[in-house]
């Protein structure tokens, strides 16, 4: 009896101990995480060198930026005509680890220059080496300042609602970001000179100049856009498109001049999870001497659609570019992938094309007017007309290492009626290299009378492709005007409705 009592007592003690332990151990869990620093936007004044800002940069004022300039969500930065913004080198300690400065836009950016008083995002006292055959790099690295990435970029984030950039020079950007301050750029990669990534936002780039770059000068990973009447020079070092568009983007790329781009003028790809499907109308552009700094072949040299993207490609003048319009059709996995990083085909059935003019100074270029991976065939409306020249496209796919051309293009070299007759420009000729001239200064791409590009344009793209007007029309908060396709080809139609540069 006594034994049992002792045992009972011990069991009670044990039970109390256990319940005490449960009591002690049931204190809840707790997570504490440091929050991102937030600075409220300070009004802009003449001494602004960076940080969170809002308000107006006053006309003809110069600003020198040494740390990232940030426009918070809900704030607006307005830049008046004639403002010069010198983007400087940055102290990594004060600048999120980056040695370059950026303009980071979570709110609204309105950069409203005029033809008479353009705005500049540039580097102070930085000269350009715009001479023929200027060296890009030597054994010490890149020497042409266009490709050095001296500052970062104008970088939107997923919350950026509106970015309007008109009559603005954006130059010498695309510096490497150790830490990307916004979504959409990989740590350690170069910034895009302009980046926009909100599918519900509006991006307008009109009548502006974009010069230089390390990767894409403009990268859109979501957004409604209108990119019109701009001049793109020296875009990208070893790769890069004037405008590189991904899933979630819809808009126009028209009346732009691209010269000396590493890869393409515009490129559309539906890569990514944003919606809607990438849809880009590429028309009336003049694209010259592009595609020659791309370090992998087969990736295009003027206009490009791949990975499910849709849109149109009409009325473009393509002069001495490494490849013609490329609408990627070749499927992956065949025995003959063209490039070492093959891509998915474009949304071919939702793309319309035609009425493009190609000029080729040598046979390597002429051989690639219709590249092997592109499934356009001969649309019959292009200049030159391959049927008239007697060239038949033999195969577009597959091919082997030995045959990377779809036809023998000798007859398309300097074919009659293909020189677009720009008012002032030096074609590469038989001995010169198309890559020698990658800038526009000193040239005039308006058409001489008698140009074969006059009167050859399509003024509509067919019933299935109505004109796109996806951005608001407004002097300050949208597009100055969506210019429809012209009866003349290229960015400079004779009626003067195109590029004003």
């Amino acid at each position, binding site marked *: 009896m006594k034994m049992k009592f002792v045992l009972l007592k*011990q069991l009670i003690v044990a039970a109390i101990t256990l319940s005490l332990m449960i009591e002690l151990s049931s204190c809840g869990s707790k997570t504490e995480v440091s929050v991102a620093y937030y600075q409220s936007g300070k009004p802009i004044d003449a001494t602004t060198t960076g940080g969170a800002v809002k308000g107006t940069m006053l006309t003809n004022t110069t600003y020198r930026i040494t740390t990232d300039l940030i426009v918070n969500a809900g704030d607006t930065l307005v830049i008046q005509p004639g403002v010069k913004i010198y983007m400087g080198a940055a102290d990594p300690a004060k600048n999120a680890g980056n040695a370059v400065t950026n303009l980071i836009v979570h709110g609204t950016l309105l950069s409203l220059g005029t033809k008479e008083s353009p705005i500049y995002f540039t580097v102070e006292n930085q000269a350009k080496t715009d001479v023929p055959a200027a060296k890009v790099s030597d054994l010490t690295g890149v020497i042409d300042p266009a490709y050095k990435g001296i500052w970062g970029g104008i970088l939107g984030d997923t919350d950026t609602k509106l970015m309007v950039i008109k009559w603005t020079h954006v130059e010498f950007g695309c510096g490497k970001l150790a*830490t990307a301050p916004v979504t959409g750029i990989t740590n350690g990669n170069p910034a895009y000179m302009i980046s926009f990534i909100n599918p519900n936002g509006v991006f307008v780039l009109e009548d502006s100049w974009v010069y230089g770059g390390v990767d894409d000068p403009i990268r859109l990973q979501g957004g409604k856009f209108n990119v019109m009447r701009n001049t793109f020079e020296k875009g990208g070092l070893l790769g890069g498109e004037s405008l590189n568009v991904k899933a979630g983007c819809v808009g126009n790329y028209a009346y732009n001049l691209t010269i000396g781009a590493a890869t393409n003028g515009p490129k559309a790809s539906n890569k990514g999870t944003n919606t809607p499907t990438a849809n880009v109308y590429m028309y009336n552009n003049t694209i010259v001497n592009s595609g020659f700094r791309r370090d992998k072949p087969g990736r295009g040299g003027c206009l490009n659609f791949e990975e499910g993207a849709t849109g149109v490609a009409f009325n473009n003048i393509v002069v001495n570019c490494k490849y013609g319009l490329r609408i990627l059709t070749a499927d992956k996995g065949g025995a003959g992938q063209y490039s070492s990083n093959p891509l998915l085909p474009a949304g071919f059935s939702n793309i319309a094309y035609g009425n493009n003019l190609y000029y080729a100074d040598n046979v390597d270029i002429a051989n690639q007017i219709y590249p092997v991976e592109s499934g356009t065939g001969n649309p019959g409306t292009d200049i030159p007309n391959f049927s008239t020249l007697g060239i038949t496209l033999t195969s577009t796919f597959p091919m082997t290492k030995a045959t990377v051309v779809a036809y023998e293009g000798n007859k398309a070299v300097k074919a009659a009626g293909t020189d677009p007759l720009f008012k002032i420009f030096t074609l590469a000729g038989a001995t010169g290299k198309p890559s020698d001239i990658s800038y526009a200064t000193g040239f005039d791409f308006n058409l001489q009378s008698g140009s074969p590009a006059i009167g050859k344009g399509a003024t509509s793209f067919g019933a299935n492709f109505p004109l796109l007007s996806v951005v608001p029309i407004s002097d300050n908060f949208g597009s100055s005007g969506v210019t429809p396709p012209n009866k003349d080809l290229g960015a400079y139609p004779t009626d003067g409705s195109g590029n004003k540069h």
Partner: protein
Amino acid sequence: MIKPLLCFLLLLLFSFYTKAATVKGFIFDSKTGEPLVGATILLKNTQYGTSAGLDGSYEIKNIPVGNYTIVGQLVGYIALEKTISIKNDSDVIIDNLLISENISQLNEVIVTGIGEQESEQSTRRSEQRADNVLNIIGAKAIQLLPDITVGNILQRVSGVSIVRNSSGDGQYAIIRGMDKRYNYTLVNGIKIPSPDNKNRYVPLDIFPADLLERLEVVKALTPSMEGDAIGGAMNMIMKSAPSTLTISATLAGGYSNILTSSRPFAGFSTSTIATKSPEALYGPSYAAKVNDFGVSQLQYKNSNMPINSIMSFSIGNRLLADKLGFIVAGSYQNIYRGTNSIFWTLSQPRPDPEPNTFAFGELQIRKFDTQQNRLGLHAKLDYNFNRNNKLSLYNLFVKLDELQHRNYYNPATIVLDIHDRSRFTSQNIYTTSLRGDHNITTKLKLDWTFAYSNATSSTPAWSDLNIRYTYNNGNLVSTELADFSQQWNKNTDNDKTGYLNFNYQVKSNFDIAIGGFARFKNRDNTRASYTLDPIAGNKYTTIDKASYYLSYPYTNQSDANNYTAKENVYAFYAQGKYTLAERLQLIGGLRSENTNLEWHSQLSIYKSGRDGSKIYSNPLPSLNVKYTLSPKENLRLSYYKALSRPSFFEVIPIELAGDNWTDSGNPNLNAATADNYDARYEFFDKGNDQLLAGVFYKKIYNAIEYTFSNTSVSSGNVSPNNTGTATNFGFELVVAKYVKNFGVNANYTYTNSSITTQKLVFYRVDANTTTNRNEDQNRPLQGQSNHIGNVSFVYKNSKLGFDAQLSFVYTGRRINFVSPYKDLDYWQRDFSQLDFSCEKKIFKKFNYFLKITNLLDSPLIIEIVHTNTIDADQPGQDSRKSIVIQKDDFHQTFLTGLRFKL
């Protein structure tokens, strides 16, 4: 290769039989009745004698007429002498010998130094007597296995399958379908930190097999055990001091037959490698220069058939009137391995023709050349002051230096990109512990341990190089440097732990134990990476003559991979052990583990999560019931609650780019917890014969799975998330049967787990619109095979001193990697491996051994179960029903050597 071996085996099995006067019988332990395998039976003062077989049987033949003294003896037993007389040539005398142990019996699993803990008998007894559900492999069995690392041994244990490294060796264990994150690793019962840069689990290919006394896999926890084993715990019990002077040594050599003159080993040297990054040497504001980066690690040297070598040595004894016991052992392995691999990178799935149609990126023909330098040193000292007080000191240092050269190219292009990667990883673990055992009164016992452990991994000057060969119309037109980068990574985990346990015998059949531990863990993680930019248009010849520059000569100063963290865990428990009528044993109680984690990283102040802390507590009740049906049979029932802690890497908002995605941390991640139920029937027949049959059920709350969070086109992130509740159930069967010189050892585990997570689907809405959304997908847990099994055939002839074993492992198909895209998970195809090993006594103290792995030449295949969209004639493709995205060939390895034992 296989055929002659089998013939040789058969020959051995059916030889040596003649008829004459014979003495035969069994030799048993007088107390337990267990047959004593390997015991010596001889006729005194004659040359007649033999050893007992696997079932304890012996037979001495051709004995002339006469009177003899028969002696039965075994180490650790008192020798028995008996007289017998043989009258006729044809006499067959049957004599069963019973001998008794001369040492005290073992009680619990974790036993002190004395006694032969390495043998098969001992492991079976330990399994039988253990308080909870576990499986054990002893050193004798390990010695005979074809495996030389702990990682490979684990695949032989019931319910365990392994995750292989790129050389094909087991690196991590999956216990009962529960992935590596749900298991922990102990050395002599002390948890050790991991040198892994991301995870808590310890890479098991670091540990050389020959330091082990036994390997235990614990599948049900008691309150006194650490609680973060939802799958199970692996406990490596290292060799302890023997009772008499014991010296042993091994010397072996071998080769991997994938490495031939046509596929030589292309290795590199680390002698001039830059051990520190420019940042570590000169500070973060230093602009790195081209000269700061070495290239010798990218200069490869071919060797046709490099020789693998293995050495080990051990010496142990008891001195000072048996008060002081010691053992010192060392092991060194230098192994060359080669892997040929086919690898398809993947791309974002297509919406057509059906939702989530698989799309691949590119084909890579890969080649791995890996040199592994493995060093293990261990020393154990114990000192018995008196019957009631004992002190032991344990030290272990293991180190694995792996030099891996990965080469790959995409064969079907006009641009031939040849990639070389040199990665030198030096990992080591050091652990030391001082333990005291004290009997304060006859009823109150106390033990304490102070343990210090350090685990480090370092990859200096990890280099990635891409050389681009461009062709035009079949002619090579340029050779250029395309990409070149170098990075330095280092992480250190430092644990200081104090344990204290009291055990009070309330009654002869009722014990109460209380105790706990406090662990202070500090972690330091650094990373510095640099991109060396090519200069366009410059012809490449060799790496030492290449030109490049740094467009950004600094490291990322806001990289959260640079962090320090500390984690303090305080655990305490109360446990009762109650035995009723000597048949029913109950062990149960409550454990509480309190975790206090904090981190400080270099992340930009403009991002959230630069610093943070997490505090959480887990009450972990458990109950183990053991019912002894008969002296040979147990029935066990158990319940325990367990947790799985996220690693530092998983809670700090770190981003680290991988092959297909960027991994990123999630500060809101919580620990997973689980209810675990087990039932097992055990039958221990004579000798080592055994039958174990069990069922288990686990319910895992807040299971941690990686899911996709798309941030942009170029940076899709996968991050760990608590994805809800998972279930896992199955059963295990272990059978061991020995007859005379033959034995069969087999186990089979069925597992079935289920979890539902959200995954991305790309689909078409109408002719013009494609889009994507998240949908639920139900699937097994990563790493869970429905069927896994092992069969080993053992032949043991003690008289000839010959042992042989043929071991077969089957691992059923399982998810190798969970894809963020619906129904596109990576599955490892079912895998069978056959290995052979044998051992023969050649002189008195020498054994010759041979180990051959992968007789069937099984490749490792990873596939996506989806209609094959890749051309059938493409490398690796063998079915229209699945897409092979990785196929690794390892071929065989051979190892042969001598073992000396005094």
